[in-house]
């Protein structure tokens, strides 16, 4: 069954090759791309079942035993994220096919959209299965370089400008990551995650903290935590809607995933938990204040994205199994709902010619379907029960109350306030863009919009156009998925909980890569503080 593991990367890469070879046949390309992501979805679902019953799948590429070869590992956390990513990538792909984002590829020497999208997918999947720190870096590079292409798609001045911010900051973060790998290799002499985990216990604590912080800063930029996140709202929203959707939904979560592995596997001791909690709190607050100040829906959503990263980081920073489970559930929720909202925003843009709430009006009447497709994920993100956002937040509150430190209580207050402000920012959009009549839009003067920061208008307003059915279908499917997270919350949360148990203590992971009993042996030889979960 280990053979399934590399396939989640190989299938999209081979399909990307296919899409390149058949560069002049868009229909075939679409078919290949949809097929590839569909296949990964099936693969990840199968692996989800396997790892849940039989424990992690680990393999070493090329038959070279770990730690010499590159280890690929799928445990519950990886399997879950693989599956959710596949769903989201597939949904966004359908949306972009509907939008005709790939139109105009015929003139270029290589076809652009589908191969790049597949390469991006391969990068995301690779990051989730990498059992090797350098390979994790490669995974990041794959998805980042592909994202550089996608964010500048169309090459308007604004996208290039936003792209430069994005690319330079991402390069800096990659540089830091690479430097961290070098330093970690310097100290431990290995890049295999499991082996690093074992050897890191022997590294003197003071140096371990240096390496730990360095890695966290690199991942913090990718995951967009305060104060490393200012670049994000200036770059994401300018991209085409589906691109923004997949970036917002997935890419930052890969950073969060890396943080989780850092905290649970590489540096499992709670030495930085308090610091991480403080960072999470600032991320929550500064992010949501940014959202409240925005007039543009896509920009506003980018800020809520940053803010809610704080929830996930906090769950990780609690350092308990309950916190980890809550964070995992929240990640799944947030990937889906944030993507969905950006897709809805894409529909709004297409229909209303703008995403600025100073220009939109009367959408409820003119586009009731879009209204529903925005309203449901809006409530979800705002943490209104019974949607998954509520469950995730409740789980985080519950974990915090159990942890019981002063900061955890502070978080409960801050978390609730952020939730309210999220709802405020979103409900304001609803009030103005959907409820307000379009005749009222001119010269509208209101207290709730008086202090909004007007963003540069993204592209000139276009005529209201008919929305291709596929775009609506794709968005509707994503809304359905987000609702399914609530309906299936019982089994899903149970799974997230088992995944959380799985990674509390690095023992399970280490044993799956380096052979059973390795971690126990190491624990016996080193006076280890952390217990390994069964």
């Amino acid at each position, binding site marked *: 069954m280990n053979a399934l593991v590399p396939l989640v990367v190989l299938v999209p890469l081979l399909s990307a090759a296919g899409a*390149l070879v058949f560069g002049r046949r868009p229909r075939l390309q679409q078919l290949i791309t949809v097929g590839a992501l569909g296949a990964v979805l099936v693969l990840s679902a199968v692996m989800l079942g396997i790892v849940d019953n039989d424990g992690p799948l680990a393999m070493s590429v090329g038959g070279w035993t770990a730690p010499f070869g590159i280890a690929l590992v799928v445990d519950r956390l990886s399997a879950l994220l693989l599956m959710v990513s596949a769903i989201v990538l597939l949904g966004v792909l359908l949306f972009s096919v509907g939008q005709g984002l790939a139109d105009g590829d015929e003139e270029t020497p290589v076809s652009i959209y589908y191969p790049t999208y597949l390469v991006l997918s391969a990068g995301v999947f690779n990051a989730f299965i990498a059992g090797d720190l350098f390979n994790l870096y490669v995974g990041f590079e794959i998805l980042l370089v592909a994202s550089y292409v996608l964010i500048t798609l169309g090459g308007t001045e604004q996208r290039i400008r936003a792209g430069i911010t994005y690319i330079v900051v991402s390069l800096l973060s990659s540089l830091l990551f690479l430097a961290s790998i070098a330093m970690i290799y310097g100290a431990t002499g290995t890049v295999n995650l499991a082996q690093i985990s074992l050897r890191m216990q022997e590294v003197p604590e003071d140096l371990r903290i240096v390496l730990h912080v360095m890695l966290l800063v690199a991942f913090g930029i990718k995951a967009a935590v305060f104060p490393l996140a200012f670049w994000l709202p200036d770059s994401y929203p300018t991209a085409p809607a589906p691109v923004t959707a997949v970036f917002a939904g997935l890419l930052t979560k890969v950073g969060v995933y890396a943080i989780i592995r850092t905290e649970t596997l590489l540096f499992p001791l709670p030495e930085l938990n308090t610091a991480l909690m403080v960072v999470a709190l600032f991320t929550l607050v500064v992010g949501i204040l940014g959202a409240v100040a925005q007039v543009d829906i896509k920009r506003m959503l980018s800020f809520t994205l940053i803010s809610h990263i704080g929830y996930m980081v906090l769950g990780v920073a609690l350092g308990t199994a309950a916190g980890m489970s809550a964070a995992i559930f929240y990640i799944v929720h947030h990937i889906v709902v944030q993507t969905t909202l950006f897709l809805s925003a894409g529909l709004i843009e297409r229909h209303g010619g703008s995403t600025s709430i100073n220009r939109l009006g009367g959408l409820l009447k003119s586009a009731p379907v879009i209204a529903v497709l925005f309203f449901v994920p809006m409530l979800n993100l705002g943490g209104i029960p019974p949607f998954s956002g509520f469950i995730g937040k409740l789980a985080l509150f519950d974990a915090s109350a159990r942890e019981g430190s002063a900061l955890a209580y502070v978080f409960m207050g801050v978390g609730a306030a952020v939730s309210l402000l999220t709802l405020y920012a979103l409900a304001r959009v609803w009030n103005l863009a959907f409820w307000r009549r379009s005749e009222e839009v001119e010269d509208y003067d209101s207290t709730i919009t008086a202090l909004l920061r007007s963003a540069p208008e993204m592209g000139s307003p276009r005529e209201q156009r008919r929305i291709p059915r596929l775009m609506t279908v794709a968005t509707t499917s994503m809304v359905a998925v987000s609702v399914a997270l609530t309906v299936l919350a019982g089994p899903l949360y149970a799974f997230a909980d088992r995944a959380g148990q799985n990674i509390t203590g690095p023992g399970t992971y280490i044993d799956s890569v380096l052979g059973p009993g390795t971690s126990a042996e190491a624990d016996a030889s080193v006076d280890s503080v952390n217990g390994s979960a069964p």
Partner: protein
Amino acid sequence: MLVILAVFAVASLVLYPLTRSIGRPAFAVAALIPAAAFVYTIAQAPTVLAGGSVREQYLWIAELGMQVSTRLDVLAWVMSLVVTGVGALVLLYCMRYFDADEEGLPRFASILLAFAGSMYGLVIADDVYLLFVFWEATTVFSYLLIGHYTGRRASRGAALQALLVTTFGGLAMLVGFVLLAVTAGTTQLSALVANPPEGAIVIVAIMLVLLGAVSKSALFPFHFWLPAAMAAPTPVSAYLHAAAMVKAGVYLIARLAPGYADIPGWREVLVLFGVITMLIGAGRALRQYDLKLLLAFGTVSQLGFLTVVVGAGSRDAALAGLALLIAHALYKSTLFLVVGIIDHRAGTRDLRKLSGLGRDAPALAVIAIVAAASMAGLPPLIGFVAKEAVFDSLLAMAGEGSTVGWVALAGVAVGSILTVAYTARLIWGAFSRKPGVESAPPLHRQRVDFLIAPAVLSAAGLVLGLLPNVVDSWVAGYADSFPPAREPYHLALWHGLTPALGLSVLVLVLGAGALLVSGWVNRSGWHVPEALGSNEMYWRILRGVDRGAARVTVTTQRGSLPFYLSVILIALLAFVGVPLVLNRTWPDTFTFMSHPVEGAVAILVIIAALAATTAQKRFQAVVLVGVSGYGMAALFALLGAPDLALTQVLVETVTLIAFVLVLRRLPARLGERHGSVHRLARAGIGVAVGLLMGTIALAALAARVDAPISDEMPRLAYEGGHGQNVVNVMLVDLRGWDTMGELSVVIAAATGVASLIFVSGRRDYLPRLSRRDAQERVRETLRRVADPNDATERGSWLLAGRTLAARNRSIMLEVVVRLVFHAIILLSIFLLLAGHNAPGGGFAGGLVAGLALVSRYLAGGRHELGAAAPLDAGKLLGAGLLFAAGTAAVPLLFGADALTSTWFELDLGWFGEIVFVTSTLFDSGVYLVVVGLTLDVLRSLGAEVDRHQEDAEQTEVRS
């Protein structure tokens, strides 16, 4: 019960299309569902009233203890009757209230029904989280219903206000519930009440929960949202904002009181805020001219009243509270519905414009007067019975010497006086004949069935008032969950000449007086100070949040890349610098350099890097960066890595060429620097980060805990990978997975270059040569050249050289390229094949082949490039990736791990033996991808940019 909830959910979805097709009669269908729930609830009476309870339970999320569990006990039973009964009647009423062409009616109908369902769920939920689910659901539906008239600005504002205020409380409540549930170890509501946990955290938790209740029930200081919510259609006001939703807070207080009434602060908070709310509400009700607003403030007042009584937390007060709750639901919804009918009929709700309605619509007047009498506390109505009970229980509390009891009693008494006054004002204003005011003719013909709902509700108030012992039998079960303090009180119309009766009489008399006084006060212009109207407070907070948000965002979100980079680097310096200073692990020995040339190269690299930062011209900067790169190559070579050195040199060369191709189209000088971060500061940050990195490297290497895995690599490469070049074996085999990933990075980069350069293809509409035409043209040229009869092309060294303008041609270059091109290609293939055992490999080979193509392009221009490589760059890239990923995938078919390599020894006879390692196939993929990349870059940055330039020149000539 869960089935009923499911039916509610499904029905509210179905109701949308139903209302769309059949219009208003759909409301009658909708009313059947709460009616059915009502009947079901009645049917449970034998069990519930005997002291039992009906439960249903399903596990939802076990890990969080969340359950879908419902429980119908006496309190839930009473609330269910109110919620479903009033709900059914209000839905029926809607059928006549709305015009047939009302906008958004289907939406309204389904939301109202969904609301009824959530309200029902709220009162029967037996899990705190489930309760919260329904609690917030009612908030959201209330938001949508208040904003029903979406075109009206006031509606939208009121809806948002109600949403924010009640969600604020709701979230506080959620935190409270979590604290409570975690402390007690259960989320079951009945268990939490039966066995309340203890401790300081519980007090905090309960206060947070009360905050939720207080905001939902519109108590001071949150009372302002309720009158504003009157922007909703009247049926909504009657149902949500009188009978059902605003009672949720009171319900929750009643639900928790048996377990928590004795915790410190409970009574004080509830009685104090209840009394304040009751007085403010009643005082403001006396000043309203809009009948609906009068009722709204009256409702605020009554909610305060209910809170005082229910929160008082004694057996008798609980009895009185529940009776009062029933009474209030009946009379207040009646009165709202009546006002709706008045509005419908007269076209106004302003009591100064209404006159003579009592005579014109006697039935309506009777209905209203009965309900109003109940509100004022006149016998023999349920309102009187309840109020008697209230006075009696509070007198008992005060009699025990409790200060809270006295405050409650006094507050309630004064509040009741004002209640009598505004009730009288309501009836007088709505129905009396006023001198000087015309009695307007009815706008609509009133249908008798419009009166059904208010008539039933009003009559219920009368019937229950006449049967106080029946009501007593309903509510006593709840009251008895409190410890009995004295002889239990029972609801009755006549208890004898008790102090409570005296108080009732006094209230009525003083109430009549208060009406007169209030008339005089109104005319004098005095009013309740605005400070108490916390509406202003709401806007101030909202503006404060907006302003704070704007300020924070402007500070952090500068839109400047240098600023963002500086923040990130400063964060790095701070976060990593602090632990580094505290670090105690340092190396004992330190080798500055192992060879003097290293030092020289390092100095060169540093100088070049510094110069690059201050370069004034683009080309200069690019070359200087290149120098750093070549310096790195030199360092690799010195440290014994010829492969890396070779590759680095090639990469630098190709990069330089790519830059040069791009720079053709850019201004020579770098633009003005307009960074938001000062130059010196930037230099400082740069130097500091550099030092930091160097220091960490020093410390990290000093701490090496174990032998590095790379020590084993040469052995593994030879034994397992069958190659002597360990670098190559690592690239194509040991860490081939990384290489495959990087190949996709290269491909993505290639698509990126094409995407940016060929941007015009997707946006602009300039007529241009299509691809096919271009190919055709190249082919045409080739045909002419190959034609021996065409003398003009004879003697050309490069086939397409003629297409270049004469001034761009260099015969010398053409000759050289012609001579070496094939040799270079052969060399590249040699590098590819030899790479496994000697320096080289697919990457270096590919780069060399790429350079060969570059030379063809430089010598002969873009048509020459087309001739040299009549291949699609995309196909090359695709084929390369297919090779590489295919080599990785094929072993899986044979049950081996991905990328597993093997080798074949082939005897080629005369040519000798050859050892073919399958990883060479992988390397061929690398080779193809690199060639494809070069071709793509040349096509884009070379050929396409040429074309741009020619287009630009042509445009210039033309204009």
